[in-house]
């Protein structure tokens, strides 16, 4: 399997009469984009805004962050099973709009999460403050269920990202990166002396606002399985997760999965990156046991020497994480787990809701309860109506001057459990 990612650097976004990309500038015809979004009856109103790194802007509540990409060569299209047909993706050529993202923003339920500050102390905690963001603000029609809103907002974001990605179809990339993987037999033959390493990617799957889709399938209805890392780069995994802003994996995180990237970097040098196992985080305990059993079975079947396990969310996923870790370790396969912590505002509480001595190699994305003060911003995209009630916010957290005193968990992507960030804790 071979996928070429052609990176096209986007340095600026401007509204214009014609949507196109020229010399690193993305021009967007707002009417054209919004017309597509409003095709969905559930969306009453929508508009676009632009947020630039360093600008005094606060985007909230953030639902998803998506990187526009387009399939240039090879089977399938972007976001298979949701936007494109379900053909298997992950081979050929894909163009990537680097340095930008589509951010969906808007009310799904009465409580809501996620802040992206483009400047100030909050900006240091979210990777998305470094991107040129095209923000899609959606207003749902009244009278529908949250399930329907969630789907409408999710699909709207993916549609816009697909539309923007299309603009890059015929462009020459600024840089091309090739990701190539041999089949299992060849990979073992190619690197007989390197340790065989896999990646167990845990997906949040618990119900409304907690779901992840793989080729359009709700992942809570799946068994633990395997996927090619390049399929994930082509949008095979899409986030439907609206809670736990700090440690949910947005679609952007999946497209740019840092564990996959760093394992590719080490592949053939210090280790042999054999494959990706995806597993879910269901509510039902027997599901947790079954799914983690299968993670361990697959890791053993693949003759892995070591795995990295990444998590998504807080609380019951700690149980899945520990089960995966423990069962894989018990097969004699070494593990490193990536998680984040809820150690209380004073940092003195037990960080995880589950623990095991076999989890002796832990990477942490930081304590999500640590308090941050976010100064007021000149412009708000979306609304701060929810800030008082978002996770980590509390009564009075939105101060009169527009600043916010809240826990880190309020910031989108701040304690990511794929290891996307440099934040850590001791």
């Amino acid at each position: 399997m071979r996928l070429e990612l052609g990176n096209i650097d986007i340095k600026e976004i401007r509204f214009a009469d014609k949507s196109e990309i020229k010399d690193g500038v993305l021009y967007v015809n707002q009417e054209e984009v919004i017309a597509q979004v409003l095709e969905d009856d559930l969306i009453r109103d929508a508009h676009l805004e632009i947020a630039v790194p360093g600008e005094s802007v606060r985007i909230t509540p953030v639902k998803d962050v998506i990187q526009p990409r387009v399939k240039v060569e090879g089977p399938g299209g972007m976001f298979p099973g949701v936007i494109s047909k379900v053909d298997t993706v992950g081979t050929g050529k894909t163009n990537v709009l680097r340095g930008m993202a589509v951010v969906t923003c808007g009310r799904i339920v009465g409580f809501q999460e996620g802040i992206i500050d483009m400047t100030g102390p909050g900006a240091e905690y979210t990777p998305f403050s470094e991107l040129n963001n095209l923000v899609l603000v959606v207003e749902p029609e009244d009278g529908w269920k949250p399930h329907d809103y969630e789907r409408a907002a999710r699909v709207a974001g993916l549609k816009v990202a697909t539309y923007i990605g299309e603009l890059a179809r015929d462009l020459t990339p600024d840089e091309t990166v090739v990701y190539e993987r041999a089949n299992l037999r060849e990979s073992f033959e190619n690197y007989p002396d390197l340790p065989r390493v896999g990646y167990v990617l845990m997906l949040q799957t618990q119900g409304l606002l907690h779901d992840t889709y793989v080729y359009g399938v709700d992942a809570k209805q799946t068994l633990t399985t395997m996927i090619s890392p390049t399929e994930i780069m082509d949008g095979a995994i899409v986030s439907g997760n609206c809670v736990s802003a700090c440690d949910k994996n947005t679609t952007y995180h999946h497209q740019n999965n840092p564990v996959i990237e760093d394992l590719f970097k080490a592949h053939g040098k210090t280790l042999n990156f054999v494959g990706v196992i995806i597993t879910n985080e269901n509510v039902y305990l027997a599901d947790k046991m079954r799914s983690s059993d299968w993670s361990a079975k697959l890791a053993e079947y693949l003759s892995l020497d070591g795995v990295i396990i990444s998590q998504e969310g807080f609380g019951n996923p700690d149980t899945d994480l520990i089960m995966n870790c423990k069962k894989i370790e018990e097969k004699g396969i070494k593990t490193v787990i990536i998680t984040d912590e809820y150690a209380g505002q004073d940092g003195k509480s037990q960080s995880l809701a589950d623990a095991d001595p076999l989890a002796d190699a832990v990477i942490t994305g930081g304590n999500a309860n640590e308090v941050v003060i976010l100064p007021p911003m000149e412009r708000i995209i979306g609304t701060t109506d929810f800030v008082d009630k978002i996770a980590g916010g509390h009564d009075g957290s939105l101060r009169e001057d527009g600043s916010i005193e809240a826990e880190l968990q309020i910031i989108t992507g701040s304690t990511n459990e794929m290891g996307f960030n440099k934040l850590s804790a001791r």
Partner: protein
Amino acid sequence: MKKFRVVHYINQFFAQIGGEDMAHVPPEKREGVVGPGIAIQAALGDEAEIVATVICGDSYFGENMGKAEAEVLELIKSENPDIFIAGPAFNAGRYGVAAGTITSAVKRELGIPAVTGMYVENPGAEMYKDDVYIISTTNSAAGVRAAAPLMAKLALKLAKDEPIGASKEEGYLPNNVRKNFFEEKRGSARAVEMLEAKLAGKPYTTEYPMPDFDRVEPNPPVADLSQITIALVTSGGIVPKGNPDHIESSSASKFGEYSLDGFDDLTAETHETAHGGYDPVYANADADRVLPVDVLREYEKAGKIGKLHDKFYTTVGNGTAVASAKGFAEEIAKRLLAEKVGAVILTST
């Protein structure tokens, strides 16, 4: 700008009074820097001055816990310091405990920034790392050059009320307070490196140590108490009056084995506690409160239990290193097994 006034605490060895033979010397105060104070003063630079050094013998401090602490504290207080620094004590156990005790007392009683330093395995570290900042040092005095700048920097930060970073940044021993900071590499890259190390059998440090899992699987219940010999073992420090083996009031280095032959009830005349970590009044008045000999004798007479073992085992749990406690337990268990004891009631305080 006014210089911060610093008082430094060291033991008799680092004051070059002498080694173990001079460990009994009582507290004294000298003007200015002494011994390792030179390195600390150099690290403090122009911002602070070590105005006095308080010196105390390790044995004196250990054997006169409350008294020595009060005396040392008084000497420190008399200098009206803005900052207190103790040690570093490296791997010297009693020195570490003394440095930790004093640092903790200064922080509590005088309310000024107080910092010490020692090796992670120093018993003082385990006792005080969650209470005061302890800069992590090597296990030998050669580490003073590395430790002094860290101790000085942290003390100055505290004095100036500046935010204190995570343990890894500042160099203090992890204190069970989780603190965020930015690493140089992102988490995924750290994960790959950690996995490579783990696969190669090389050392690595987990970023979040799992909580202590030193759990013991309970044995199945005793089927028939009336057929069994039960022994009493305590870490509550109950000893025959006069503490014949001089079990230390803290950081015990030994346990005692004493006969219960002829005792139906422990009294203030026969037994007392050697423990320095709790108010001894009630234990001294009636040691059965910690070591329930009276009740077990009753049970013995009533036939509820087969027999009370005629010896009891005792030590002081106060600040005693886990490794020492494990060692005591192994030896005690051996002796109990040899005498066919079937069950043990283990009391603590």
